[in-house]
């Protein structure tokens, strides 16, 4: 791993923010809107509130066990084998995220911009770029994320500003959509959309000082939440609850609405470029961290050679399910519900074990 301590708060912030906030632009809102209708925008808040204590607990544990990353922490607390098993669960979560989400992203690009292109080639192209990008290592990923961060944020804000004419605030009411109960259960079962925050913890020692890492990550978590909520809110107020359930890719549907004055009426490609840039970065981060987790579990000295098999596996897994709607709506939803429980529970269990062992006193 190339690491000379060049990473600081801002790079981690950018990495984490791009990684988390891109959730606002995929098909998750459609998934959530099936049950909660126009209260969709509240679900991430509930999810975040549910997962935040566990997340803070993890950060607290990492702080206590100095110089350890996520998987090493598992091993330190629960012993070698159970620790590795827990690590493996996180690894499988990453792999499934890679496969489901890359398929989802390729579908978005294909349906909206390249109707006639074969999906397999697009998959190879997309993951190929991601693979070569990830090869450059965590530092370069950090630099790239930070330098491209302002422009990506600027276009995101521009989308909000340009669409604001279409927003009808009244559509947010009734405020709890199909009922408070639905919102809360959905908030719980979709808590795994913030599960990716845990994946980032593998890089705990990548920064110059771990204080910078904590600061960057927490800041990004909150800003990311705000971005997700704002985007979800815009989706439901623009589409209303009936259409949002049928809009497969709400972000791109929104950009289709946007025009810039009377002359430039179809500027969705402009936003697509920056969205694509962020999407590439997101997958570079995800694939790199997946390899990192794998490398730590199996005690590999250098995990970068693992990137190639993981990339190929992603392509393979992404191409396999022929019906992307089914993948998205059935498998992914079930997976999310299971993982939510896992992400909420395991930090608490870890903390309890560490506390019982008396390792937190020092």
């Amino acid at each position: 791993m190339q690491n000379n301590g060049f990473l600081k708060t801002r790079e981690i912030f950018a990495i984490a923010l791009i990684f988390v906030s891109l959730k606002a632009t995929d098909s998750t809102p459609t998934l959530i809107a099936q049950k909660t209708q126009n209260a969709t925008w509240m679900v991430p808040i509930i999810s975040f509130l549910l997962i935040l204590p566990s997340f803070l607990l993890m950060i607290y544990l990492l702080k206590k066990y100095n110089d350890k990353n996520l998987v090493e922490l598992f091993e330190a607390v629960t012993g070698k084998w159970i620790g590795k098993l827990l690590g493996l669960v996180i690894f499988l979560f990453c792999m499934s995220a890679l496969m489901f989400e890359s398929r989802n992203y390729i579908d978005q690009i294909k349906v909206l911009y390249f109707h006639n292109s074969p999906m397999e080639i697009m998959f190879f192209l997309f993951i190929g770029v991601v693979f070569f990008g990830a090869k450059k290592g965590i530092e370069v990923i950090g630099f790239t994320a930070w330098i491209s961060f302002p422009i990506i944020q600027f276009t995101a804000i521009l989308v909000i500003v340009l669409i604001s004419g279409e927003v009808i605030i009244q559509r947010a009411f009734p405020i709890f959509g199909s009922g408070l109960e639905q919102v809360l259960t959905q908030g719980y079962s979709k808590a795994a959309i913030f599960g990716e925050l845990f994946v980032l913890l593998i890089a705990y020692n990548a920064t110059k000082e771990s204080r910078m890492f904590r600061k960057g990550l927490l800041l990004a978590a909150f800003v990311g939440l705000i971005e997700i909520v704002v985007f979800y809110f815009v989706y439901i107020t623009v589409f209303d609850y009936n259409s949002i359930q049928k809009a497969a890719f709400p972000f791109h549907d929104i950009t289709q609405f946007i025009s810039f004055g009377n002359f430039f009426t179809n500027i969705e490609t402009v936003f697509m470029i920056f969205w694509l840039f962020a999407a590439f970065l997101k997958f570079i981060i995800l694939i790199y961290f997946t390899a990192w987790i794998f490398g730590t579990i199996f005690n590999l000295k250098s995990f970068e050679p693992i990137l190639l098999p993981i990339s190929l596996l992603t392509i393979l897994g992404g191409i396999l399910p022929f019906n992307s709607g089914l993948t998205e709506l059935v498998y992914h939803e079930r997976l999310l519900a299971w993982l939510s429980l896992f992400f909420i529970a395991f930090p608490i269990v870890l903390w309890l074990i560490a506390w019982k062992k008396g390792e937190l006193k020092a």
Partner: protein
Amino acid sequence: MRFFQNKKPTKKEKEDQKLPIHPTLTENIDKMKQLFSYDINKDFSMRTLTIQQDQKKGCLFYYGSIVDGAMINEHIIKPLFENKGDSIKNIVTIENVEETTEFKTVIQNINSGKAMLFVDGEGIAYAMDVAKFEHRNVAKSENESVIKGPQDAFTESLNVNLSLIRKQLHSKHLINEGIQIGEKSVSEVNILYVKDLVNDDILNNIKERINDINADTVRNLEVLEQYLEERPYSLIPTMLYTEKPDRAASYLEDGFIVLLMDSSSACLIVPVTFWSFFHSPEDRYLRFLYGNASRIIRLCCFFLTSLVSATFVAITNFHSEMIPPDLLLAITASRERVPFPLIIEILLMELAFEIIREAGLRIPNPLGPTIGIVGALILGQAAVEANIISPIIVIVVALSGLSSFALSEVNINFTVRLMRFIFIIAGGFFGMLGLTGAFLLFFMYTASVRSFGVPFFSPMSPHFISSNDTIFRSTIQKEKYRPDYIKPKDIQKKG
């Protein structure tokens, strides 16, 4: 067999060079004649004389073509005939006299333009500096022109170049250190740095790399650059090549290191970042707003020259829905009778532009105007009229070609010109998806490049304390720090 013939200097030659100087003059004269092939080498001169002081025989050797004849007459021969003194050093009126006892140093000294005096009965030779290499006068900078700011440029003479730098930077800490390189023809690389600023690790790294060069000759700085760089196959340059002394001085002030050689009319600045290539010295001479305005324009040019053709290909081929209908109709109408696919058209035109540029550069001066007429008329007008190229392509390519001149630094200019072709192909292959991917990879590759350990996009990312002179610069009063990425000994500029 060639391998065996291509050996280093024979054993005998090496022994000859190591030989100490003989006490008797005739022996030494024979030796010198043999070493420098006196009988066939026409500009190698020898002058025997009798020294007035003690009536000893002496002999003077030098290359007639690289010394100042009048100076030899006035300050060596005349004093030797007329003056008295207790030693040779006190007789001749040359500013710099050195003694040597080895033929190796004698050879080096004669090659660098010194006259060597052998005296009978003495086992030493006196090296007297009378060098006068021919060089151009200091001229106006031609490749990096500025409107506001000093106009002088380096010329092919080390002393002149040094004086140009010292004129800008009056500091007793400005050190000029020489390192000799080359096996067959020894030349000297001069390392300039400000002693109380420069980072010793970087300095030593550079010295080591220069010492590690294993070559018969390193004729000039342009060749040295290629010997020093880490990634010879990379598209990204890692050293800044400039012909402006004021630019060199401003980098020296910040703790950077400047390399000079006698035979080059430029200097190399190390280490560099992306911003060094992006900036022009004029940015700092112009007032705050004017300087930053020209930076914005240059940034636009950077993106235009590398991406405009590729974007045009991508959008018209894959995303034509985003072009406003009127414009789309105009483009289609202009392409109606053109037989080629758009990407071929663009590639043809870009290639034509590169040809005009390359040929225009090499063409002898008297023929210069011809190429303009041929280039503009045939490639522009006629190609359009013959329906080979659509007029809109001419506009796009001209725009991208013109923009490339705003990035005047020769290395980065090549980088963007070559990348342009990769981007065009990427844009023709999967439109914006291909182009964004290619640009991202290019960007990440650039971010991973290091110049002597300094990441290429610092101080933007990774962040370092500095005056934040990246895309924009702050006002002169606010520039309080030297860039921390080169770890200068003193980071605070003032106060």
